[in-house]
């Protein structure tokens, strides 16, 4: 029987192991789920399979034959295709569906002239065979997201795909679109295509997959048959026995309500969010990647425009027109993408530390250099930033020290609410614990803190209260006492929706 096997795949990135002897086996005509928390190694493994990375050791065997996959071309030659989550990056918007489907066969590898009637006829035939409702002459830019996905699937089939990787295909889709996609996948399965299915949504995994492989910390932890497993077992495998880090949680009296958010909405990523933050309280907003945490943080900060909703701080309405308005109101953000959104790479440590509070150090338009420098020096000491001097360009600092500077620039603003979006991403352990301490201190000063993270353990360690996000909604509120990783994972992966569906089914 036709199979694809990855055996003992190893991969290191600058000495840090990303994959440790991982095995994966996918049969033709099987839908195989690949699961794991963020950073478990799923994407690295798939990048090796599609030729984007090469493994340090290990082998890939297709139908009993050893396959040397060094480049994306090699992978395609072996019939391995990937339908990426970001469909737009793989399509040419102003070309027709037919051209996009047959791109590699005709357009880039043709004889110089395009045979248009043949192109359309071939594409038409393929689309019909697959049972897709696509008009081949339509331009791709006019299609919906789910139609674009179909174009990518058709393209994969046009290139004789035997194995197709679906990378979070349902993330941008509506429920009905999801159901349609599942039908297509069932179709492909019948046609003998082997499918690797990556998703964070456990209910759908149990709906469509035959087997499940779970990864954790760069290793394969289990492969099981879906019919003989259940969500709880999968969650246990995904989380494993984790050692609890030391979280210096301070005992801080919690005061009055500072921030109140009602029905905040933007598109599909943030849907009717209500929440409150009190003085001295650290509220963790937790969810899987793509749940809408960053989008929520940006809305609260005025970085994106909300479609609906109301935000009040100490009872006064906050104008969310721009970050400047929000900052002036006393809400600040430490953004997720440090290099892109947090620091000005070529500027000095000092200039990065003082840029949000320049007015404080200015007299008649002129910057009072000594005052500015001593303020910056003061911050460097308070934050424990490791830097040679204040004029050092911030780009030369480590990620953790850069992040301390990003936090530090807000410390002199006397703001009430601090939003932290994945503040420990790409930060070493020492700096991490410094950042936790810093946040604890802010709470001690009776600031209100919203901490957005996909690291469950981190949130469990520092938050007083935990809000779980899934698909743009806050689906569950957990107190510090009752929250566990398993519970969070259950709600974050749509477990509640799964239960309700089951109830509905048994009820009817």
């Amino acid at each position, binding site marked *: 029987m036709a199979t694809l096997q990855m055996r003992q795949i190893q991969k290191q990135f600058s000495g840090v192991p990303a994959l440790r002897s991982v095995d994966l086996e996918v049969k033709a005509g099987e839908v195989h789920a690949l699961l794991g928390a963020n950073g478990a190694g799923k994407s690295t493994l798939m990048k090796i399979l599609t030729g984007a990375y090469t493994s340090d050791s290990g082998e890939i065997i297709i139908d009993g034959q050893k396959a040397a996959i060094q480049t994306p071309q090699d992978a395609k030659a072996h019939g391995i295709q990937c339908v990426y989550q970001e469909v737009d990056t793989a399509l040419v918007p102003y070309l027709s569906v037919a051209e996009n489907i047959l791109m590699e066969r005709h357009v880039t590898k043709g004889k110089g002239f395009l045979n248009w009637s043949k192109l359309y006829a071939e594409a038409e035939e393929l689309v019909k065979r697959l049972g897709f409702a696509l008009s081949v002459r339509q331009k791709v830019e006019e299609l919906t997201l789910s139609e674009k996905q179909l174009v990518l699937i058709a393209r994969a089939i046009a290139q004789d795909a035997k194995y197709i990787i679906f990378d979070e295909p349902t993330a941008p889709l509506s429920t009905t679109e999801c159901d349609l996609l599942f039908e297509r996948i069932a179709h492909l399965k019948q046609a003998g295509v082997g499918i690797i299915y990556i998703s964070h949504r456990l209910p759908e995994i149990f709906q469509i997959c035959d087997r499940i492989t779970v990864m954790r910390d760069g290793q394969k932890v289990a492969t099981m048959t879906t019919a003989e497993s259940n969500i709880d077992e999968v969650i246990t495998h995904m989380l494993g026995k984790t050692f609890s880090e030391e979280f210096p949680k301070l005992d801080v009296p919690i005061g009055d309500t500072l921030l109140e958010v009602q029905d905040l909405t933007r598109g599909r990523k943030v849907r009717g969010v209500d929440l409150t933050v009190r003085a001295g309280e650290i509220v963790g907003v937790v969810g899987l990647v793509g749940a809408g945490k960053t989008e929520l943080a940006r809305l609260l900060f005025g970085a994106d425009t909300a479609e609906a909703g109301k935000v009040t701080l100490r009872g006064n309405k906050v104008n969310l027109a721009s*970050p400047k308005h*929000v900052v*002036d109101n006393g809400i600040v953000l430490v953004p997720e993408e440090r290099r892109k959104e947090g620091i000005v790479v*070529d500027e000095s440590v000092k*200039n990065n530390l003082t*840029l949000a509070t*320049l007015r404080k150090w*200015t007299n008649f338009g002129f910057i009072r250099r000594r005052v500015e420098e001593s303020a910056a020096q003061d911050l460097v000491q308070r934050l424990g930033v490791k830097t040679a001097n204040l004029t050092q360009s911030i780009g030369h600092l480590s990620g953790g020290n850069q992040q301390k500077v990003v936090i530090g620039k807000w410390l002199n603003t006397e703001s009430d609410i601090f939003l932290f979006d994945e503040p420990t991403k790409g930060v070493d352990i020492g700096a991490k614990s410094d950042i936790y301490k810093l946040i604890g201190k802010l709470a001690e000063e009776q600031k209100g803190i919203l901490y957005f993270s996909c690291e469950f353990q981190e949130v469990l360690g520092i938050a007083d209260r935990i809000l779980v996000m899934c698909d743009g909604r806050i689906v569950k509120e957990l107190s510090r006492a009752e929250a566990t990783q398993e519970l969070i994972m259950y709600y974050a992966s749509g477990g509640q929706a799964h239960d309700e569906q089951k109830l509905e089914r048994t009820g009817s």
Partner: protein
Amino acid sequence: MTNKSSKEQVLDFLYKYATIMVIAAVILFFSIINEYFFTYSNLTEILRAISIVTLVAIGVTFSLIVNGFDMSVGSTVSLSTVVSASMMIWFQQNLLLTLLIPVILGLLVGLFNALMIVKIRIPDLLATLATLYIVKGIHLTYTSGYSIYPNMAMQDGSTAPGKLNEWFVWLGQGQIASVPVPVILMVVAVIVVHIFLNYTRHGRILYITGGNAEAARLSGIPVNRYRTLAYVLSGLFCGLAGILLAARIGTGQVDGGAPLLMDAVAAAFVGYSVFGAGKPNVIGTFLGAVLIGVLLNGLTMLNVPYYAHDIVKGTVLMAALAVTYYQLRRKAV
């Protein structure tokens, strides 16, 4: 950082001082070749020649600081030049209006650019390219394509009624303690802008906006206001440069600003590499203008025809760009 290879150290040293050494070497070379070159009168002549270019290049520098670009500087200068000449020669207006109207026009062009780039979000290069042609068309229409000079024949057959104000002429041709007035104005402008950029809050924010507009916005800085400010300041300096151009040659030369675009851009980019700044800065821009001025002056002395000058200017710009972008790539690795 401490154990850099010797090759790296050499590159760093070169990046810091190469531009200065090139300027010094060029001056030395021409001084040896031609004894007249290194004389007070010739050196002030060079400075006088670059005074207008420097003002325009300061405008370009402002646009570069916010990570933008202003292609319309040349035609803005042309507009300002013919309008200031026409104020006196056609309309017999006083000195104040003669100076004020071109400056206001320069500011308006800058504001228009900013509107297109900041609000409509047209890429800076394309928006200011379109502005270049619009403004060029406006000033050609305004003058019907003729330069404006005293006693010129008007459309209706009469002679132009006005003449140049003597203070106006002094701005372009006068001297204070045997230093030409345009040179003094240039030096003052360079100093003022240098102080503005390096010692004031607004200057700092301009740099931060150019360094990372998104980070600046997420730090509560009204980024669009500062990008607008940069283009408006660019327009202002073009307005001033246009006045000085009319005052120096005593006519409102039609399309007189066009050749300045290339010189100004070259000067600003040479400025990137002066003392290894790696970013647009006004002292560097000034030295860039000096380099170009020295080269052109020296080449003229060597009887290199004027139509070959563009080859030299283009090569200087290319070399400056090569140094800047090579260094950026090296830093990124």
